[in-house]
């Protein structure tokens, strides 16, 4: 396995569209990094640049201390797992997994041992004589992973590998990838637009938008201390509630309610007195409180079993509360809430105020 260093990577296509701006990342040996962001944010382009499938316009890519920026894809010793599996339909699972090693003209007995070992890890031993069409989506993706494993590459790249699977299978395969990472101790770069995948899999997450890195950090860092409004609203399900307000007289006045600032919050927002800020509150931090300062006009009550999502309007803002009880609110009910934790963002820069 290997470390990976991406320095000032830029990607400009022939039509002058810049997909990636000044991407910097150091991946440690054995680390699982997840690139997350909405469609078109440049995460797949970055991954393809690492794989060698896209030219790097400027910047430097170093794998295990060696500059591979201009090196052809085949020489980089990187394995990539694609969303659509990319298996050879006419070959059996065994042949698919052995194919790359056969091309390298490795000894057939060695290939056999490697394939059996990978199949054992992935629970594919009984499927080795089957063709891909005889397998389920999850099994096919495991074959694609097996094909990567047998090569023992320096770095594994995953490009939205679970997107073609149904929800149940996605969860199961996600756990398998995590177990695989723990077992192999491999350096992995994983691209997804699914924040659940990002939060559950990653050692560190790179959150991207419009080609720019918005924040790099552990899942907890991104969830607990988002760097800006984009990260705050992208990470977390349901997304964070955002209220525009103005800091004045020890409170933040928003449309429909005023949030009273604690002593420490006043200190934090001292320089923003009289200025516009964004108040961010995660749905689980919106708690029912008979004497709460926020009155929600309920529009929808979604019971999820262990908790309830209460959707409503607060002064024209669409607001969601995640209540840890079984609730039976009806449309038109007026319920009082307060916040037990909030985030502050500068309205102008959208950056977090810390």
């Amino acid at each position, binding site marked *: 396995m290997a470390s990976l260093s991406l320095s000032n990577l830029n990607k400009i296509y022939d039509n002058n569209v810049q997909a990636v701006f000044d991407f910097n990342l150091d991946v440690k040996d054995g680390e699982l990094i997840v690139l997350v962001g909405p469609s078109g944010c440049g995460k797949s382009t970055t991954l393809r640049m690492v794989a060698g499938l896209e030219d790097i316009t400027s910047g430097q890519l170093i794998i295990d201390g060696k500059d591979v920026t201009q090196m052809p894809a085949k020489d980089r010793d990187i394995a990539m797992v694609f969303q659509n599996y990319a298996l050879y339909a006419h070959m*059996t699972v*065994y*042949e698919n997994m052995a194919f790359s090693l056969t091309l390298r003209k490795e000894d*057939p*007995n060695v290939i*056999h*041992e490697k*394939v*059996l070992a990978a199949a054992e890890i992935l629970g594919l031993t009984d499927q080795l004589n089957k063709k891909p069409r005889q397998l389920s989506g999850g099994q096919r993706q495991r074959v694609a992973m097996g094909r990567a494993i047998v090569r023992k590459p320096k770095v594994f790249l995953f490009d939205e590998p679970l997107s073609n699977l149904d929800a149940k299978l996605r969860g199961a395969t996600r756990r398998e990838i995590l177990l695989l990472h723990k077992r192999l101790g491999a350096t992995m770069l994983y691209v997804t637009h699914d924040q659940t995948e990002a939060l559950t899999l990653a050692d560190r997450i790179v959150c991207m938008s419009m080609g720019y890195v918005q924040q790099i950090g552990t899942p907890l860092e991104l969830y607990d201390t988002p760097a800006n409004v984009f990260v705050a609203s992208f990470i977390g399900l349901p997304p964070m509630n955002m209220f525009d307000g103005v800091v004045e007289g020890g409170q933040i006045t928003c449309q429909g309610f005023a949030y009273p600032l604690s002593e420490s919050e006043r200190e934090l927002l001292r320089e923003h007195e009289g200025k516009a800020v964004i108040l961010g509150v995660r749905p689980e931090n919106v708690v029912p409180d008979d004497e709460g300062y926020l009155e929600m006009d309920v529009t929808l009550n979604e019971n999820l079993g262990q908790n309830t999502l209460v959707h409503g309007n607060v002064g024209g803002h669409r607001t969601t509360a995640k209540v840890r009880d079984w609730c039976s609110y009806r449309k038109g009910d007026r319920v009082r809430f307060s916040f037990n934790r909030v985030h502050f963002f500068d309205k102008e820069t959208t950056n977090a105020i810390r």
Partner: protein
Amino acid sequence: MNRDLKLIKKDRLRYTKNKLSSTLAILAIVFDCLYFVSIYSSDVGNYFYNYIIGASVVYNLLFLLCTFLSSEGVKSYKLNYATLLIGVGVMQIVRIFYIPLKAHSELVKVGTENIPAMANGQFTYVVICLCLSAAACIASGAIGIYKSVTLKRYQESLKA
């Protein structure tokens, strides 16, 4: 060869196809094609226009069919197809003594001259083609039988 390596080789048979036998069978078809193209393009008097050639055409079709099916059969270690290939290979040897040998030893009157129905050069060529075709068939069958039996025994040992 150490014991582990032998075991790995046997185990590989469970997941890999018998491509060698299959390729040899296809090679046998190629040599047979070279043979019959040479025979059917011969035009020495009316010698080749008789029922033997008709039978030869039918046999060639059967040969092509059997050998092609066998090439697929041996690929997946089917013992009966391997046996069939050996039979077909023997028949290729037998064929030398029919059209090629008879045509080579028979004289045909063309104009005022008596010439052999099959010249030395062509005779040597078709005999080589048939011999190579036979050798490929027999080798394919023999390898097929060996691998099929080995695989069968190995699978039985795994079950036990």
